[in-house]
């Protein structure tokens, strides 16, 4: 009975569109076009958050089990513009506002998923997910395993990491490393309009809890997004730019900083290969290994803290397999073990950007094994 409720989406829903993804240029804060290099993605030009809205609308239209919930999503501007007006088309039974009550409401989402629906629960910031940790860590991530495989929780939780403008310690945490520690939760961190549509549709179609963690700094991009529904498989990163000297692996907004760094490095004669991880659980370790085998050097640029985070995990995975092939120690550009400060002078010292990646990449290039 329940199995039927979780039947796979129609075939066209899980079709990957195009072999490549747009190469997105970004200069944080400004709206930039992602189409000037890659020409083979045809579609309407839209911003990142419009692509999120496009995916949500299509999922709502396709499958009546899908619904979207969150505090303030039916506000005039919607959640970052990504939910604007959805309730007008789909009704307030399927697109609805929620109280804060993050623990209880996350449980409501988990229970609805258990009952055969496919909720998408939106939060402004991952910091609020700390109030929902019981449901995420003790319940949603455990039920399928604990039931011997008969209690799937097809749930998507979206939260947007903040940065800058004095957002400070409780409104700018990048917590993916912490969630990555827990078995049973998938985590996606898309960076382009094309990727976010494909990955979000895959997340909604997936039968497991999926955390969709993106970053406020990538919301301003524009790019071509196909009108048809398509999905991008989890566990598949993407090589944004081929290179031979050093692998730079970017996560979330740092993948965009890595692209900026690449240009600067090229002018210094360093040919960097740029990887965008896109999903961090499952992790595309094969893409990383293949690249590092070629370059012999790895720099991980993360939006999260260094201590016990994803950069530590990936470093270890690489050392376990390529210890003798590395020409330099794995370099990490990540946050210091400090809560996010508010003052902009401190923010500047706290956050990393393309210049930090360039500096660390050059340092790595100077290492000789």
């Amino acid at each position, binding site marked *: *009975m*329940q199995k039927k409720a*979780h039947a796979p989406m129609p075939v066209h829903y899980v079709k990957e569109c195009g072999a490549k993804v747009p190469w997105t240029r970004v200069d944080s804060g400004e709206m930039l076009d992602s189409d000037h290099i890659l020409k083979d993605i045809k579609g309407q030009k839209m911003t990142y958050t419009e692509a999120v809205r496009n995916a949500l609308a299509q999922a709502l239209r396709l499958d009546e089990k899908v*619904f979207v919930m969150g505090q303030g999503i039916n506000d005039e501007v919607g959640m970052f513009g990504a939910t604007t007006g959805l309730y007008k088309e789909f009704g307030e*039974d*399927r697109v609805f506002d*929620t*109280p804060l*009550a993050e*623990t*209880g*409401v*996350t*449980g*409501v*989402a*988990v*229970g*609805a*998923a*258990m*009952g*055969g*629906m496919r*909720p998408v629960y939106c939060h402004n910031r991952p910091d609020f997910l700390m109030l929902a940790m*019981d*449901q995420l860590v*003790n*319940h949603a991530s455990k*039920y*399928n*395993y*604990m*039931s*011997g*495989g*008969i*209690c*799937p*929780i*097809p749930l998507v939780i979206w939260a947007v990491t903040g940065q800058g403008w004095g957002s400070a310690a409780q409104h700018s945490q990048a917590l993916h490393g912490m969630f990555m520690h827990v*078995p*049973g939760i*998938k985590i996606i961190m898309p960076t382009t309009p094309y990727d976010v549509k494909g990955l979000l549709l895959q997340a909604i179609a997936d*039968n*497991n809890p999926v955390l969709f963690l993106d970053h406020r700094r990538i919301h301003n991009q524009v790019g071509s997004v196909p009108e048809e529904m398509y999905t991008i498989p989890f566990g598949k990163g993407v090589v944004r730019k081929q290179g031979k000297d050093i692998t730079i692996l970017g996560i979330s907004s740092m993948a965009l900083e890595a692209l900026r760094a690449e240009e600067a490095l090229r002018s210094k004669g360093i040919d960097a290969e740029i990887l965008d991880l896109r999903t961090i659980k499952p992790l595309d370790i094969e893409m990383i290994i293949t690249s590092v085998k070629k370059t012999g050097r790895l720099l991980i640029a993360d939006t999260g803290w260094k201590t016990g985070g994803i950069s530590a995990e990936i470093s270890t995975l690489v050392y376990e397999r390529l210890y003798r092939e590395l020409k330099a120690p794995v370099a990490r550009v990540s946050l210091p073990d400090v809560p996010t400060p508010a003052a902009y002078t401190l923010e500047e010292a706290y956050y990393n950007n393309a210049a930090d990646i360039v500096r660390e990449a050059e340092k790595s290039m100077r290492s000789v094994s």
Partner: protein
Amino acid sequence: MENMLLKLYYSMKRIRMVENYIADHYNGEVREMRTPIHLCDGQEGIAAGVCGNLHRQDTVFGNHRSHGHYLAKGGDLKKMVAELHNRETGCCRGRGGSMHLIDRENGVALTSSIVAGNVSIAVGYALAQKMKKTDTISVVFFGDGASEEGSVYESICYAKINRLPVLFVCENNLYSISTPFCVREPNADIGSKFETILPVASVDGNDVLTVYEKTREITEHIRNGEGPWFLECKTYRYRNHHNTGNGVDNRFRTTEELDLWKAKCPIMKLERKLSAEGLLENAEIERIEDEIQKEIEAAFSYAKESACPDAGTLCEGVWS
């Protein structure tokens, strides 16, 4: 009604005998049930009385002490006993243990040992049923301890404002493990904490007929789309929070208190009523006990003859 009284009696008796059988075999020389058990004897009137009003398609949500909820709702005894024995044939294929029971076909959602978490999940399940336009209801059992959690308040508010078909059943057995209410909260009257939000009823959980009749009235309201209800059932567990002792070796529970509650045994109470009304003869009681005993022994044999999960299957089921 006569038939219903006998059904309630049978349901309670079966739970009691299962719990006693588990207790008798839990601490033997060969400890085959390697899972923390939380027995519910003394509280059978609530599971039987509430579930006696539910349809197969209705769903119950339980906690760490849910053998009774599972059985009263129609969960498969053999699969439960196999789960307690860590067997592949268990209701959770040996992945859940005593505190995590499931029988989706019979409307037992996965029970949770993180108490209160199941309360909001039951509300979400009811939301899904409402969206799918089914006429089923969700019932969640939780204890006085769980009622202290903030998410219970959140869940109750959410259910009420959305008029969801949920029955909140608080089994107030006076102790959170061994800590009495008086040192936990300023207001020991649980129902009064919620009565400004939704309709609350408070009943003697050791009187199965009262529980049954009150639940019948409440579930009619809920099925009519009138929104959620809160039912507090006052009761007492005969044993320790965990394991098989009688729980009087702690600081607050006393032998006198236990004896007082044992005199209010829900099964004895109904048995006396049925006997007095000539509805239950001693011979019939013996026949019922014999029948249940055979069912339990068959379930234990089934469990013991089943294989434990193969180590090679360790990673199965993390993802759906």
